[in-house]
């Protein structure tokens, strides 16, 4: 059994959950400590986290360390989200915190954060698997933004970020200095235009029956069964609206009392509700589920999964691939060609395993690169490399960290452009050497695969590879003329040989 501490250095709360994790018993939360600390206020207003706040952060992290020790927690993960990410002096603050507390905070992107939330939801198992059999959306309402994720037949297919978080909207409304009565109308105006775009681009004709809500306010009511069906956290949309309409007649003071909520949260609850009801309207959903998960749950789950203590009950890789396929589709990528390329590239990758020494995760990155290898052509056929790179860097791919996304973008870029060596590449980005090597290795494979399908006609029915001393023999099964491919191949093979010291050789096998 492992005792693990998950720390979420959030924008307004520093929270830590202690878990006991074992294969037999799963994950058990044994403590949940929260402290309100407004890191976000500093970052958003001034761009920097003030000395006083850092001091407060360190003081509490030191106390958290004591609590971790008291439970004999063997490992921890601390993730910083937008307040840390967006501050100008991130590196300095992280270093300071580590020096003073020993806690290493890792910064995660919005999408990584949402993916962890999502993993935490998926870990809830039963209810989740049941829901996503029908059209389902996850509405993850944060302080700064909302993440909308759509499922199609139990696979996550797209995810979009709207800058419409509750705190952001509250600040905006405060700025306008309007009464609560006008909130509904104003939020409608703010939100509906963005939702209309979302609908047109992503939702289309999809039928969304269920909405899974992740937030700090509505979830609270549903988890505590103030409003819920038979199972805590689940409720019919109709009943939910009815309940919320009753609330509108009450004063914030009354609600504070009724829900054991600070008055400040009551306003945020109200905004959260108004946002959610616009989204419900756009999707025409029937059922709500608030699983009441937090980022800490996701962090712990990720840890348990990585360390193979808990086996995933949902195929997250499939989600990532499905999302990527959707991105490719949006940029008019050819599905067939993508699949051919994927097949060839993976075949090569697998046979080179002994030599490249890369892992499962890198194989996934290669898959994504093949799927997105030509997305830039949507903009320009000439500047394919640069355009593809830009598109990938500007698109959120759920499940990928920022660095992973950059690896994919670079692999796609250098598939088309001359490879740049570390000194040159490093000048433009923060990539470390390890990532650079990954880019080189994956690029080499993609280039060869791409060369084998130069005509985009998917001429090869079957590709087999065999590694023989210094040669990688690629046997292609086709009766068609492959002069073009063979011609291109030599050029592309050079880079492969440079990276791996293995020469790829193409052999044609005709079938009858």
């Amino acid at each position, binding site marked *: *059994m492992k005792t693990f501490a998950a720390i979420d250095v959030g924008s307004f709360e520093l929270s830590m959950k202690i878990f006991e994790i*074992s294969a037999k018993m799963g994950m*058990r939360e*044994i403590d949940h400590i929260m*402290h309100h600390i407004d890191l976000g206020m500093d970052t958003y207003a001034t761009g920097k986290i003030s000395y006083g706040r850092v001091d407060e952060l360190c003081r509490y992290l030191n*106390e958290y360390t*004591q609590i971790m020790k008291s*439970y004999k927690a063997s490992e921890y993960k601390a993730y910083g989200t937008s307040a840390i990410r967006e501050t100008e002096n991130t590196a300095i603050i992280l270093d300071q915190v580590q020096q003073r507390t020993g806690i290493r905070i890792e910064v995660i992107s919005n999408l990584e954060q949402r993916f962890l939330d999502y993993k935490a939801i998926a870990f809830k198992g039963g209810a989740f698997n049941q829901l996503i059999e029908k059209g389902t959306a996850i509405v993850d309402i944060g302080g700064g933004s909302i993440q909308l994720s759509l499922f199609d037949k139990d696979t996550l297919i797209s995810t979009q970020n709207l800058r419409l978080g509750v705190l952001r909207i509250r600040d905006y409304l405060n700025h306008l200095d309007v009464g609560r009565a006008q909130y509904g109308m104003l939020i409608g105006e703010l939100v509906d235009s963005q939702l209309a775009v979302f609908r047109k681009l992503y939702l289309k004709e999809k039928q969304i029956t269920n909405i899974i809500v992740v937030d700090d306010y509505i979830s*609270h009511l549903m988890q505590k069964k103030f409003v819920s069906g038979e199972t805590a956290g689940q409720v019919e949309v109709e009943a939910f609206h009815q309940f919320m309409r009753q609330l509108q007649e009450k004063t914030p003071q009354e609600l504070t009392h009724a829900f054991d909520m600070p008055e400040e949260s009551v306003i945020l609850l109200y905004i959260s509700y108004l946002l959610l009801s616009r989204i419900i309207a756009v999707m025409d959903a029937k059922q709500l589920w608030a699983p009441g998960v937090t980022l800490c749950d996701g962090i712990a789950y990720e840890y348990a999964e990585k360390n193979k203590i808990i086996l995933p009950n949902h195929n997250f890789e499939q989600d990532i691939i499905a999302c990527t396929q959707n991105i490719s589709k949006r940029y008019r990528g050819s599905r067939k060609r993508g699949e051919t390329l994927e097949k060839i590239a993976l075949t090569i990758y697998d046979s080179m395993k002994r030599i490249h020494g890369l892992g499962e995760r890198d194989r996934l990155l290669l898959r994504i690169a093949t799927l997105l290898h030509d997305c830039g052509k949507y903009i320009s056929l000439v500047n394919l490399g640069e355009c593809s790179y830009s598109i990938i860097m500007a698109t959120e791919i759920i499940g990928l960290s920022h660095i992973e996304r950059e690896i994919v973008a670079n692999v796609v870029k250098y598939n088309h452009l001359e490879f740049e060596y570390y000194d040159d590449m490093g000048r433009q980005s923060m990539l470390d050497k390890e990532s650079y090597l990954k880019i080189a290795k994956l690029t080499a494979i993609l280039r060869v695969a791409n060369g084998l399908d130069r005509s985009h006609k998917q001429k090869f029915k079957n590709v087999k590879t065999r590694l023989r001393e210094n040669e990688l023999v690629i046997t292609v099964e086709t009766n068609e003329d492959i002069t073009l491919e063979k011609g291109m191949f030599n050029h592309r093979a050079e880079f492969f040989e440079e990276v791996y010291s293995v020469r790829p050789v193409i052999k044609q096998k005709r079938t009858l």
Partner: protein
Amino acid sequence: MGKDSDKQETGKFTDSKYYTNRELSWILFNKRVLSEARDKQIPLMERVKFLSITASNLDEFFMVRVAALKDMMNAGYTKPDIAGLKPVEQWELVNKATHELVNLQYSTYKRSLVPLLLSNGLRIIEQHEDLTAKEIEYVDRYFMENVYPVLTPMAVDSSRPFPLIRNKSLNIGALVKKKEGEEELEFATVQVPSVLPRIVPIPSEKKGEKVIILLEELVERNIDKLFLNYNIVCAYPFRIMRNADFTIEEDETEDLLKEIEKKLKKRQWGQAIRLEVESGIDRRLLKVIRDELQIKDEDIYQIDGPLDLTYLMKMCGLEGFGHLKESGYASPQPVPELSEDCDIFEEIRRHDILLHHPYQTFAPVVEFIRRAAKDPDVLAIKQTLYRVSGNSPIIAALALAAENGKQVSVLVELKARFDEENNIGWARMLEKAGCHVIYGLVGLKTHSKITLVVRKEEDGIRRYVHLGTGNYNDATAMLYTDVGMFTSSRPIGEDATAVFNMLSGYSEPRSWNKLALAPLWLKDKFLYLIARETGHAKAGRPAHIIAKMNALCDRDVIAALYEASAAGVKIELIIRGICCLKVGIPGISEHISVHSIVGNYLEHSRIFYFENDGASEIYCGSADWMPRNLERRVEILFPVEQPDLKEKVMHILEGELKDTVKSHVLKSNGTYEKVDKRGKPVYNSQLEFSLEAKEAARMSQTKVNERVFIPETHHQ
């Protein structure tokens, strides 16, 4: 029914004419204690003890409650209280009642107790003038050897200001005249030293008789030795009481600890609110003291007897009078579920365990912490401490745990009335041992009694919790009736962790499982539980509330009880002290009865029973139904859910309601009377509980013995 008529409906129940002033109700409580001192059924030394208790109760009442009234009057505050009385009106009534109470105290002392003590072989020499020549020889020598060296006589004249007379100290005031020179009278005073025993035994000439005299008599007798250049005109004892109800401004001070230390010193300097003098005091002397202290005539108590009867507590401890003490009550008994050599954690895992003190021993609670301190699997111990005994074994165990590397967090409430000095001392000691000490919460007094032991076991973390209605004080646990519960229930364990997280300054949890906490949730919970019974009654279902506590004076709760009674809920209250509720008001409180038990032990547990249409719920906790408990303190209410434990707690309530010996009943005219015994079996609930505990312990002891194989000695 619309909202307005609803409001009228509740307005009906909050009318001030339905409420009793809390100070007057408190005086009634002290009278009930005094009635024990006057009860001929009770052994003599116990009666002496009860009289002493009424005296120390009254001292505290003056320092806190009367002082508060004075403050309000000084500040021109005129807001009426729960019973519609303005501070001035309250004070007038209280003043009259306290004078009556004091008269009753001293008539009890002089007419009943002193003669009875004499006939039982204890002679109190009330005035030094009554000493025999032989006795005089002894006491004068005693005075010169022991008393004289520690006295600080002070005279007042134009060059020396009036000295500080310390709060609650006993003093001898005198008028003196210079032996040479002017005729003018001067004031002189000397404090009767509090470091010396008040009771001075004198060798007796008669066999089997004990003779004592009070220290102040010796000082008074020898006062001429203190003011050698003066002639003593007259000398009389006097004692003053000062305002002590300070509120600590937590927000304004950096270091709470220092502030309290500062206040402690300041406490001596408060405004004088009561002056006690011996009756027959020289009028000129009284005038000097009165003018200097700026005290009104109404605040002067002319006492026919020794000032400050709290010395009687020491007298109960005199050797040789054991036969005059209560002996019917068994000493605290072992708890059958927790045999001496058991693994306490294993027993708690198996079953929740209820402790009923002082009938059952408090030792398992100390043992719980002691074992936890030594157990290698224990990770952490967390506890709230409010008042602990000096030399507390709990403190020692906590310190040991910290030394053994456990994480020990202790919330020490420094704001416990009059105990600060004591608390600061051991709080520092705990810190030195490596405990994490939290000094209370800003603006709130932590009154809850909870201990959490976190243990790492084979299948993960397990939490053991002790919840109680009484303080973690092994000394008072032998005198106060309290209920405690051990449990390893997971929902309660999670809540307990959340409680300590909150007390450590972290955010409140998103939700609670089982525990209800003041000041955030508890009052609402009670109002909800009461209203639920009202609902049952209105729907024609049986509805019943039994609530036992120390004091009831929260207006909202009382109004809810009135509403419940009006709806037909049967309400039985067992309230030891203050009760602002009135019984027998037609249409308002006809279904409410109030019992008050003043017995051998101090009733202290808080237990609440709600019938809930057959699905009854029982709660215990640290909170009374007082605004200060429900709104300004951290309190915990916990459910007792295990059926056999519920039965035990129910038995406590039923037993106390059955009491015909120690129980007083509140009448509709606002007075308390002893239960009418006619037609009822004699039942002393405290004595019964004591006997039951003894029997239960004996039974479990026999069971253990039965396991032993007894060899046959006779061949049949």
